[in-house]
């Protein structure tokens, strides 16, 4: 039985109240704009919306989802995720496995690790990277959004540290039984690395979904923008362009304002992240702790 002193009890009460306040404060901007997206344009434009939608309506979402450009951008984002995430995870594992070996068995290891880590420490930056993409004729190709970000050295280090902490006997037994490194990696290492694989998969997924800058500089054709880039270009406009509207949109425009439409766009783009958030929270936290606090 712990004795709780009176000042400490007062602190505990303050602590619960304060943390509740901080959590609500973090949530508030998101809830407010979410409420705006579900409010009527007149309520939103006159600043009546605080925590709940005023004059609840789906019309802003109808308006956003009617836009052809929005749907094209959504498909472009899905494409970069479908191509980029598996490729990145595959290449990451193929780098991490050899580099997780001991120096005694793989003498070049230290040099190779440095070759990868150096890219984290020093980069050519925006313009030379842009020129490389241009020279490789990758402008306006989805590969410009996939290939340059395939090797994420942070993920490599995370996977590498995970492999290093596995019992050495697993590998020895497998290799001495005559299995190749490929086979050892595939049948011995990967099956017991699923949580780490899930972590880097989610890292990569979020990175691809959220990336907007590469789309902005590597895609000249707006029709090839991924969703994040499209959203960025829309949010920079002061009002919705009144051209290129479908008939349905033109009708909806009566009850939708730039503000409510923009709020709806934000949440359609955020929706996939919200959807996988429970997994993100579970694996990111684990991955971050594994990656930073090594045994």
């Amino acid at each position: 039985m712990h004795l709780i002193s009176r000042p400490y009890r007062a602190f505990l009460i303050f602590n619960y109240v304060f943390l509740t306040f901080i959590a609500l404060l973090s949530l508030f901007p998101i809830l407010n704009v979410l409420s705006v997206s579900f409010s009527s344009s007149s309520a939103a434009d006159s600043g009546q919306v605080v925590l709940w939608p005023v004059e609840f309506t789906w019309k802003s979402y109808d308006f956003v989802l009617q836009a052809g450009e929005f749907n094209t951008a959504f498909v472009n984002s899905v494409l970069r995720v479908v191509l980029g995430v598996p490729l990145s995870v595959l290449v990451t594992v193929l780098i991490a496995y050899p580099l997780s070996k001991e120096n005694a068995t793989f003498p070049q290891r230290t040099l190779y690790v440095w070759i990868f880590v150096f890219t984290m420490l020093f980069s050519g930056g925006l313009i030379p990277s842009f020129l490389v993409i241009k020279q490789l004729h990758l402008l306006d190709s989805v590969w410009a959004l996939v290939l340059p970000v395939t090797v994420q050295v942070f993920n490599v280090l995370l996977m590498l540290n995970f492999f290093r902490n596995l019992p050495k006997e697993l590998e020895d037994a497998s290799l001495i039984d005559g299995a190749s490194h490929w086979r050892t990696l595939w049948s011995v290492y990967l099956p017991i690395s699923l949580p780490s694989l899930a972590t880097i998969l989610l890292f990569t997924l979020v990175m691809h979904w959220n990336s907007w800058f590469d789309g902005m500089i590597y895609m000249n054709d707006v029709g090839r923008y991924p969703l994040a880039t499209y959203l960025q270009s829309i949010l920079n406009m002061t009002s919705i362009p009144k051209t290129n509207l479908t008939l349905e949109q033109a009708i909806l425009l009566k009850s939708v304002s730039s503000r409510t439409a923009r709020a709806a766009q934000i949440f359609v783009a955020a929706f996939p992240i919200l959807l996988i958030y429970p997994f993100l929270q579970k694996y990111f936290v684990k991955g971050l702790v594994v990656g930073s606090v090594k045994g």
Partner: protein
Amino acid sequence: MFRKAKVSRKNHQLHLMLIPGFVLILLFSYLPIVGLSIAFQDFNPIIGFKELRWNGLDNFHYILSLPDFKPALRNTVVISVMKIVAGIVVPVVAALLLNEVRSALFKRSVQTIVYMPHFFSWVILGGIVIDILSPDQGVVNVILGAFGVDPISFLSSNAWFRYVMVITDQWKEFGFSTIVYLAALAGVDQGQYEAALMDGAGRWRQTWHVTLPGIRPIVVLMATLSLGSILNGGFDQIFNLYNPLVFETGDILDTLLYRIGIEQAQYSVAAAIGLVKSIVSLGLIGLGYWLAYKIANYRIF
């Protein structure tokens, strides 16, 4: 011996596995580093790489003569330092407070909420920030208005812009940054608390003499590692929130580089800014890792 030889004969497989990774970083990391050589040229995008016109340090002199350069450099350092300080103080305090929570359900609920903004991009969070801070409809000014405060254009005000950047940066990252400190707090030796209790130390003195020294190494580590980001300032955030009215306090090196390089297509000048930035950052990262190694005995791999 026989076993060793048999195993090491398979080493060529290890090299083979590395090939895709090497090809990719050669193309997309090392080739751009070579491309930084255009910083010493008068590179014309129409002529391309066929005809190289070297001009020594002309681009660097030109940068120094740009009126936008010095404010951008100053803003970058000021904003970064503010963010680094906030980025240590806020998460450490939050972690200490969360650590005192006994109800697992309450703790998990708070964590679930405060981790969330980390996973959204600055495009999404920027859109939200622009909306809530809007002078005529935004909820912040609506609430302030209820207290009789006149509307404030937070994102167009040189008095406010940097603070908005630091606060919204904390909104996005503080929760997620607590993870590392919470892990460190969980690792503090429980025996020390019992020993302190035996000595008659109350809660405050336990925190002061056991908890804080327990997480000091990780705090030092995070502080030294953040040195490398001093020249960053947060491009994604600032680019999505700034406008010409706040260039004076909000324009950073990366946004300046973007405008010169991409909007004005002055490739060589922009590359020169990038080169200086990369070299200084490398030096700072090196310094940070050296300090981390000396003080906290930390190595990245």
